[in-house]
């Protein structure tokens, strides 16, 4: 019994969809020459084809720049077509903010030579990505057909880049994942933050390092941006509202989980902790709290339960 067999079994047992699924994407203008394709504010599911992350499209004289590529090969193709319609030019470059599949697997639709990522993300593509894809195929079935993540050929380094006359400033950070890229469009003051920032939606923590995440948020707060495109949730028309929201959640989450363990609660009870009223505006807060309990609890046990024998 190996994972592969489970994957095939799961696909075989899946209800057949009569027609090939089709992404219906709409872009919303953010600033001069920048659009965002809003992801569904929901978990990855058959109903949305995994299109839950925000994808940004930036017009340049050299072609369109995509920040993130969608969840699947077909999603990537649909984004490329939309970028061409909006900007009148084909995609010249794709930046991946991090490896999570809702942001990165659509890179399958682009030549590796157009895809840029940090060296850490490029290294993960050959490692962790295989594990992600098993789960994603199980959840999305036919939506995922043909999806094969290329190893990004371009290195995203911190600092300014000039593409087709447009200056972008790249920031290489971490905290939401082991490597997170944020992009500042200098002309419009638009900060595209990837999953380092969530807006009106509880942050997800499957590979989070909370102290590093706080440092990243500190850095993002001081860039002088005018607005911010979060990885999930609506565009923040202010410089700092979504950053503060993300920070408030992780500042609550970490001590709340420690206190729950020290009080002798079980994981199930910790997942049912009351969520403070100030987070009432965050979508999927209960779901993300339960996921975070799963992410952090075993390490908390190892750190906070004393050795008593062997």
């Amino acid at each position: 019994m190996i994972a592969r067999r489970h994957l095939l079994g799961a696909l075989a047992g899946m209800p057949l969809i009569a027609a090939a699924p089709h992404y219906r994407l709409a872009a919303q203008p953010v600033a001069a020459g920048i659009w965002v394709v809003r992801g569904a504010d929901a978990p990855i599911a058959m109903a949305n084809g995994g299109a839950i992350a925000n994808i940004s499209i930036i017009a340049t004289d050299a072609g369109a720049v995509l920040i993130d590529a969608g969840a699947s090969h077909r999603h990537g193709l649909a984004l490329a077509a939309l970028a061409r319609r909006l900007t009148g030019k084909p995609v010249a470059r794709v930046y991946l903010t991090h490896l999570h599949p809702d942001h990165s697997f659509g890179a399958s639709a682009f030549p590796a030579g157009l895809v840029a990522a940090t060296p850490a993300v490029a290294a993960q593509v050959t490692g962790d990505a295989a594990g992600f894809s098993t789960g994603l195929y199980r959840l999305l079935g036919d939506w995922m057909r043909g999806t094969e993540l290329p190893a990004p050929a371009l290195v995203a380094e911190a600092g300014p880049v000039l593409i087709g006359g447009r200056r972008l400033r790249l920031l290489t950070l971490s905290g939401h994942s082991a490597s997170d890229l944020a992009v500042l469009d200098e002309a419009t003051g638009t900060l595209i933050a990837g999953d380092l920032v969530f807006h009106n939606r509880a942050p997800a923590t499957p590979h989070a390092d909370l102290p590093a995440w706080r440092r990243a948020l500190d850095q993002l707060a001081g860039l002088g941006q005018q607005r911010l495109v979060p990885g999930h949730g609506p565009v923040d028309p202010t410089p700092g509202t979504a950053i503060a929201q993300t920070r408030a959640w992780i500042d609550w989450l970490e001590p709340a989980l420690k206190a729950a363990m020290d009080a002798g609660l079980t994981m199930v009870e910790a997942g049912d902790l009351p969520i403070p009223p100030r987070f009432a505006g965050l979508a999927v807060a209960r779901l993300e709290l339960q996921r975070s309990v799963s992410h952090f609890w075993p390490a908390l046990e190892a750190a906070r339960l004393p050795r008593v024998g062997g």
Partner: protein
Amino acid sequence: MILLAAPVVAAPEGARPDDPLQSPFLPTVLQLVLPEGARVRFDDRVKVQFPAIAENQRQFPVQVDARAVPGVKRIIIFADLNPIQKAVEFTPHDAEAFIAIRIKLDQRTPVRAAVEVADGSWLVAGGWIDAAGGGCSAPPVSRVKGDWAQSLMQLRGRLWSTPGQRVARLALAVRHPMDTGFVDNVPSYWLESLQLRADGRLLADLALNASVAEDPAIMLMPHLMEGESVTVRGRDSGGVELAGRVAGQSAIPAGAP
């Protein structure tokens, strides 16, 4: 990233008409996990609680609270569609009918508890949980890292009790790879028993299977006198033993159920 699966309709063919989960596999599974000829009925007083999604199918938390059922003799936690259906059998000799533990999930499955009551019949309850698969056939993290042998059978624990109240809480965590035998050439190898005593008095027995998650972590509610500590003895399928003692008093917080 957020993973959540679409619901799949189970084919009820072969299911017991009284099974609220309409699992066609239950009649066979009950023969495997319960004593022969066990009388079974479904009863909501057995509360089987777990998160809405299986975020980590190798480490899925399940909590069974049968404190509303009088005279509980045994609690068995099982998953119909795991290759090793029974995860744990808990005998609360001098403890509340309550256990929290983490199990592996191999695919979408009912997760249930069967509770034996005084007349020898069994009360069953549970729910469906979706899982992407591979919880039982994925190598344990410690096997991948190769460091399992150094910490094998290491025991962590903590006791919470309140003066004047006999119901305490006890958390135990044992380092063990809990190999199912379904991964490459690694044979099955698991922590198979834990026994808890206080001052020589038997509090609880646990019989575990390899479908319990790697590094088993358990919460129980033993009955303790003031100042008592809990001694723990355990043994794995290779004959390796553990012994430990959990002392100390932390106050049980107000508002804990």
